[in-house]
């Protein structure tokens, strides 16, 4: 009796332990949480930082979070549409970085600043 109870207790504790600990098998949900965290970090960066370069980098963070979601879903459903989309997003990120940095350099040449606060004119 005692041993059984102890066993039950043990089992409960293990499940509790598994819930909290590393031994829980990693599921899609885990990846989604990581992606969400990265996404929020990216959003904070975009909305609060003053340096344009860092804002652009935060956008890369956001895109990466999205990519991680896509690939996680791809594994969840067992097909490759998500991964293919991720490749497209990488292409998009490359284009965005090139154009964004191009704008940045053109802007820096004219106004000698890289602060978002000072980028407030449509025409200069």
């Amino acid at each position, binding site marked *: 009796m005692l041993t059984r109870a102890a066993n039950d207790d043990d089992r409960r504790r293990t499940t509790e332990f598994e819930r909290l600990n590393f*031994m829980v*098998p990693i*599921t*899609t*949900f*885990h*990846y989604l949480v*990581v992606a*969400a*965290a*990265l*996404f*929020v*970090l*990216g*959003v*904070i*960066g975009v*909305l*609060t*930082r*003053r340096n344009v*370069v*860092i804002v*652009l*980098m935060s956008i*890369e*963070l956001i895109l*990466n979070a999205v*990519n*991680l979601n896509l*690939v996680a879903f*791809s*594994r*969840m*459903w*067992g*097909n*490759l*549409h998500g*991964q*293919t989309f*991720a*490749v*497209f997003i*990488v*292409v998009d*990120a*490359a*284009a965005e*970085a090139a*154009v964004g*940095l*191009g704008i940045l*350099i053109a802007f*820096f*040449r004219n106004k000698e600043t*890289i*602060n*978002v606060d000072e980028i407030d004119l449509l025409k200069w």
Partner: protein
Amino acid sequence: MNSVVNTGAAPVATPFFFYFLAGAAIVSGLLVITRRNAVHSALSLIVTLLSVAGLYLMLYAPFVAGVQIIVYAGGIMVLFLFVIMLVNIERSAKDRQFNRIWPVGLAAACALLSLFVSAFVKGRNLFPDRLVALQESSNTQQIAAMLYGEAGRMGPYTFAFEIASLLLLVAILGAVIMTKKKI
């Protein structure tokens, strides 16, 4: 393709690597948005990108991981570092780091965070726990089939792929025109 459902057969190391990579990604992501010096931010971002590439590998997506390393870490980040060195960062490092509307921005981000949290807490059961072991050994070939088609037929994304190449071309032209002083 989606026959093997991965239940208890995952290697022991998997959770460890997951938490390691996820932790590295989030911590360095935090560094990206908090560092004063843009070069430090960029280096942290590289760590994030490589960690995410590792997560892709764990998700049986080696091709995406490879693309991530070669395009992001090897290409885009070099571009970033290049630009950071060209523009004068010493002044901006001494400057105020956050823009005028940062409280609003932070509030909006917090709102987004709470949205995510509530979605995850309430909708925990909506996300099925299943993970499918994709066929890793022919991942590239399968993505090729998606992009280019197979056995004479167009794949589902062939047209989109061509459009993407057009997008890149436009981006190249745009970047060149904007950065060149006179053409």
